[in-house]
């Protein structure tokens, strides 16, 4: 597997606060990377650097091997880096198809909206990706009437539909019920199935463990370690994370046991 995104020795501080102190991390093609870490670990700063919102003080960012100088939000989106923010992502009173095509509405040669084309594509997405089985949901349904998990799915489907290569999910299961959470995790598996990559940020390691290929743990602005969730039980994982929280690194394993 080649690396889609490579961060090397990224540093960033705000005033005197060192948010990131030399973080190196990579996301491979078609990899779902879990990013864990407590509040203040630097997760959101790191994400904002990847999406071009903040520029790093030091370090390099590579995209498909190419070094990216001065990454902007616009440039990141052109490359196919898309962030899905919970709740804030959708316009509630507008129909499903208007949300899917938000900001990228398609028009014909008379500069009139291609409404029927966009409806049809939405219908395909509903069937193939969202798997909405309810007959009550159509491309005209306002998204405000949908459940939290369905809305999360709409936001992910939107990113996938517009050829996002790397989808960043910032705590997508926050505030969702169990059933809704399961639905959202299914959508994350859909990203994998579509051959795209994902950075999945969540507090809940049970959720992360189910869908990710690899987990990177951040702590106080550094990478504290990484592990393969497939080879580790939930109990071991929790112990690891507690250890990281106390000592700031994985290395104390021998001491702990």
């Amino acid at each position, binding site marked *: 597997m080649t690396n889609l995104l490579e961060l090397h020795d990224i540093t960033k501080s705000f005033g005197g606060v060192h948010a990131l102190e030399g973080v190196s991390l990579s996301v491979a093609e078609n990899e779902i990377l879990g990013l864990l870490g407590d509040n203040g670990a630097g997760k959101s700063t790191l994400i904002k650097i990847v999406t071009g919102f903040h520029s790093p003080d030091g370090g390099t960012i590579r995209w498909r091997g190419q070094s990216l100088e001065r990454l902007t939000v616009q440039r990141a989106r052109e490359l196919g880096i898309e962030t899905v923010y919970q709740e*804030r992502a959708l*316009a509630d009173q507008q129909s499903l198809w*208007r949300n899917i095509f*938000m900001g*990228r509405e398609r028009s014909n040669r008379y500069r*009139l*909206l291609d409404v029927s084309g966009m409806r049809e594509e939405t219908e395909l997405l509903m069937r193939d990706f969202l798997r909405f089985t309810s*007959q009550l949901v159509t491309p005209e349904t306002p998204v405000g009437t949908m459940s939290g998990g369905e809305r999360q799915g709409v936001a992910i489907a939107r990113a996938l539909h517009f050829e996002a290569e790397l989808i960043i999910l910032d705590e997508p299961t926050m505030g969702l019920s169990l059933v809704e959470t399961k639905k959202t995790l299914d959508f994350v598996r859909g990203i994998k199935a579509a051959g795209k990559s994902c950075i999945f940020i969540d507090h809940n390691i049970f959720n992360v463990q189910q869908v990710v290929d690899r987990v990177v743990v951040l702590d106080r602005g550094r990478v504290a370690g990484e592990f393969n969730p497939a080879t580790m039980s939930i109990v071991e994982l929790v112990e690891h994370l507690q250890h990281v929280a106390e000592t700031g690194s994985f290395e104390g394993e021998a001491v702990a046991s």
Partner: protein
Amino acid sequence: MSMEAPAALRQEVPTRPRLDMAELFRRYGLQSATAIMALVLWIILAVGASGTWLQFDIYSSLMSTVPLTGIIALTLTLLVIAREIDLSFGSVMALGTWVFMSVHQPWLGLLAGLAAGIGAGLLNGVIVVRFGIPSLIATIGTWFFWAGIVVYGTGGNGAGTEFASGSVTRLVTGRIGGYVPAEAVWMLGVAIVLWFVLNRSRFGAHVYLVGDNDQSARMMGVRTDRVRVILFALVGLSAAFAGIASTLEANYFWPTVGSGAMLPTVATVFLGGTSIFGGRGTIFGTVVAAYVIGAIEPGIVSLDLTGLLTQVIYGAVIVLALLVQAFVLRRAQR
């Protein structure tokens, strides 16, 4: 043998009806309610004062008065869908007309007057977008400002419009075929154009998004500030046109033109089902509502009710209509 039937049944793929009743109600419920209300009002008038309401004259008269508030209400509908408001249009009507009168050359004056309206709208937009002042407050400020400028500039004196009595007057307020006021055609044209803009253009899609969720629209690349400024400019343009039209209709320019326009125009927008919270509203609703609002006063007179009751009935119709809308909306969202 018994296995075959279920297998055959399973083969049947359920086909989804493209539009079911619930969805039809959700999409058209509000517009239908508005239309039904207008129809009920018309039946009451046609039965109660058939001498007036079954003759063409009253409609010819409505077609010359209603478009003056109607055209502004149409552009204001788009602005309200984008979750902004403009209260200054009354004095922008006066401003545009004053500029028109001052140029004293009909065609140039018309262009200059309309440009002044666009300029006043742009100013509103810039104040709101650049300085983050809520439009409700900002446009109360510009409302007083432009009204004051016009009173100061004219010294409070009116003037006749004889200089423009030729082609400009015919274009703006002529009678097509001797009967149909040109204003009505203008309003119909504006309504059709704005319907296409709102429902079939990217700009229109962005208007809804700005009003519904400005933050996410911005994240998805919609230039929300630009949308807002353009909408304010459109309201200014329509206000200047309405001011000039009402002045040419009266053949006399009063510096106070437009001073009574605010309440009926704003009432029209909300009566038409446009949401004050943004993200929802239709052109159809506003057109119907403009005629409902316009018909109330002549309706009261024709029913031989005292004119002193006008405001009572105005208020009652508006409150009743909003209650019906709230009811329809709650049903639709279930």
